[in-house]
């Protein structure tokens, strides 16, 4: 089966390459320029560029842990192999210091580098293509005024045939719809602004929309949930597993703070996104939440009633704590009672108290992966800001004990059916280098730049 699938993929790729080669000429190089002078950009432009770079999460992929901002070299795992991010600092030899604004715009719009080489869509140009000329100019101004860092990314480690760059031209024929964004006349300004940001620079769908066999987002299943680096990116449409439906104010608070009292906390790859959003203006976040509230859709009356009942139940049980059952027989219940309840059942509010797990999206999620990651590794402190905390239990929970705990959490805090693949998900999480602690470290560096610029 797997073999057939691979053969099919290769066949499709070959066909695509032929069509691509015919339809698209080899892209020409754009002449190098001398690195533009700092004074050729306005402060307003650089400030806007800093905000856009933060919204676009550029530093997360383009800044390696402990390294200088935007110097690249971060390995991005994909089903096709590992792609290393490039140096987008303005170093003239190893970065983009000799790129003209035209070359930079072409990279974002068309996924082609200055020399004319096809860029892999791990760089989400199918989103960045929507950016306006002015915003691209601002991003260019911001990046060209950073410190140039001499650094060359390791070579990509991609399996054949994905290591053949020109094939990307065929991929684009099938999946790239070039921008810039065209407003929808029937929608209001807030919606259009939100759509521009969410679908464009913020590229939310890159994680939250499932991808097809060729790694392209499935447009017909927009925001139906995806996978990223061992974490599940939850559905942001009517399939959202959140026990309490998202409303715009809750979403705004979540994006601002990284946690929301009736939904839980941002962690894994969403944590650096939240860190970056600190630099985004309120108006932009409001437009994004307005647009996303539409994507979630109006919850059914039944779902709303269930959520209200749940909230009443949770907050009432917190104000009238029930005595813990003396000694439950179920091993998962005993572990929960002993290791989890002191924080998650004590009614202390987020971010320092643990959320009541009946409200958290994790236990109601499509699989156990996010809960496993958090139980094993905990939540790292974000430096310099108020953030949720949790110690990890990887060193004391055996796989069997963790599985027992997960089964109990699912049955007590969710009305959904039992999770499948718990054992293999636990093994994968144990062996994977799911980065949790390093993210904040990385981001502190990148973010400091953005926020400093944003506040100038």
């Amino acid at each position, binding site marked *: 089966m797997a073999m057939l699938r691979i053969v099919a993929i290769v066949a499709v790729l070959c066909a695509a390459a032929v069509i691509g080669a015919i339809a698209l000429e080899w892209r020409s190089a754009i002449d190098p320029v001398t690195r533009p002078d700092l004074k050729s950009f306005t402060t307003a432009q650089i400030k806007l560029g800093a905000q856009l770079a933060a919204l676009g999460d550029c530093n997360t992929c383009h800044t390696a842990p*402990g390294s200088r901002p935007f110097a690249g070299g971060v390995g991005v795992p994909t089903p096709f192999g590992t792609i290393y991010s490039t140096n987008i600092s303005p170093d003239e030899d190893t970065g983009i210091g000799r790129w003209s604004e035209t070359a930079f715009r072409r990279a974002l719009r068309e996924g082609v580098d200055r020399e004319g080489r096809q860029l892999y869509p791990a760089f989400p140009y199918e989103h960045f293509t929507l950016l306006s000329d002015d915003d691209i100019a601002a991003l260019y101004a911001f990046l060209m005024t950073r410190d140039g860092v001499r650094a060359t990314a390791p070579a990509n480690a991609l399996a054949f045939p994905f290591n053949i760059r020109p094939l990307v031209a065929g991929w684009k024929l099938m999946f790239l719809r070039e921008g810039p964004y065209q407003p929808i006349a029937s929608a209001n300004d807030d919606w259009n602004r939100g759509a521009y940001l969410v679908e464009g620079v913020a590229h939310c769908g890159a994680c939250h929309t499932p991808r097809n066999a060729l790694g392209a987002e499935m447009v017909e299943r927009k925001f139906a949930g995806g996978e990223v680096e061992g974490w599940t990116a939850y559905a942001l449409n009517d399939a959202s597993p959140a026990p309490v439906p998202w409303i715009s104010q809750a979403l705004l608070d979540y994006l601002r703070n990284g946690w929301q009292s009736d939904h839980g906390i941002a962690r894994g790859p969403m944590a650096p996104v939240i860190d970056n959003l600190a630099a985004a203006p309120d108006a932009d976040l409001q437009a994004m939440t307005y647009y996303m509230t539409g994507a979630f859709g109006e919850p059914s009356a039944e779902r709303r009633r269930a959520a209200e009942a749940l909230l009443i139940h949770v907050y009432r049980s917190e104000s009238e704590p029930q005595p813990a059952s003396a*000694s439950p027989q179920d091993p998962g219940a*005993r*572990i929960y*009672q*002993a*290791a989890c309840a*002191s*924080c998650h059942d004590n009614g202390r509010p987020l971010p320092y108290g643990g959320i009541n797990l009946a409200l958290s999206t994790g236990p109601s999620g499509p699989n156990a992966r996010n809960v496993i990651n958090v139980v094993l590794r*905990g939540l790292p*402190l974000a430096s310099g800001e108020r953030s949720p*905390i*949790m*110690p990890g*239990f990887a*060193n*004391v*929970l055996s796989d069997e*004990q963790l599985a027992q705990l997960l089964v109990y959490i699912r049955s007590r805090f969710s009305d959904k059916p039992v999770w499948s693949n718990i054992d293999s998900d636990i093994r994968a999480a144990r062996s994977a280098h799911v980065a949790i*602690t390093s993210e904040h470290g990385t981001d502190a560096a990148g973010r400091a730049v953005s926020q400093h610029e944003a506040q100038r």
Partner: protein
Amino acid sequence: MKLSINGREYDVGADAETPLLYVLRDELALNGAKFGCGLGQCGACTVMVDGEAVFSCVTPLLLLEGKKITTVEGLGTVDNPGPMQSAFIEEQAAQCGYCIAGVMMRAQALLQKNPDASDADIRSTLQPNLCRCGTHMRILRAVRRAADMMKSKQAASAADGSVR
């Protein structure tokens, strides 16, 4: 229930939900591990379980059945300190000393797994252990010294043929 601590078996009366730290300090008078935050966030309570650093303040007894617990008392005695303890004394790495037992246990776990830990390894591993006196540089020197002492001790015992 039965606990194995520093190579000794203990029969403890506390119920299975009790955090290990309380049993160590209140029942067994093993007072090396300290209560700091009680939330697994400061590291003062760190002990080793099967060779891994663990916050004893958030680890209930029921997860410890059949596992080997080591506290700072298990690294050596006042008269005969272990390499980690000697190194901390020689570098005078403690000021108030409240965090130090936890720091030593996490460093011990690291060096047992990776005797050649780099400075970067040591720094990132010790991140969960807070020290408010600010003796971080001395702590780092002490851990490096401990690594050297453990290696030369191992080399010496290999040379004289003794089995460790």
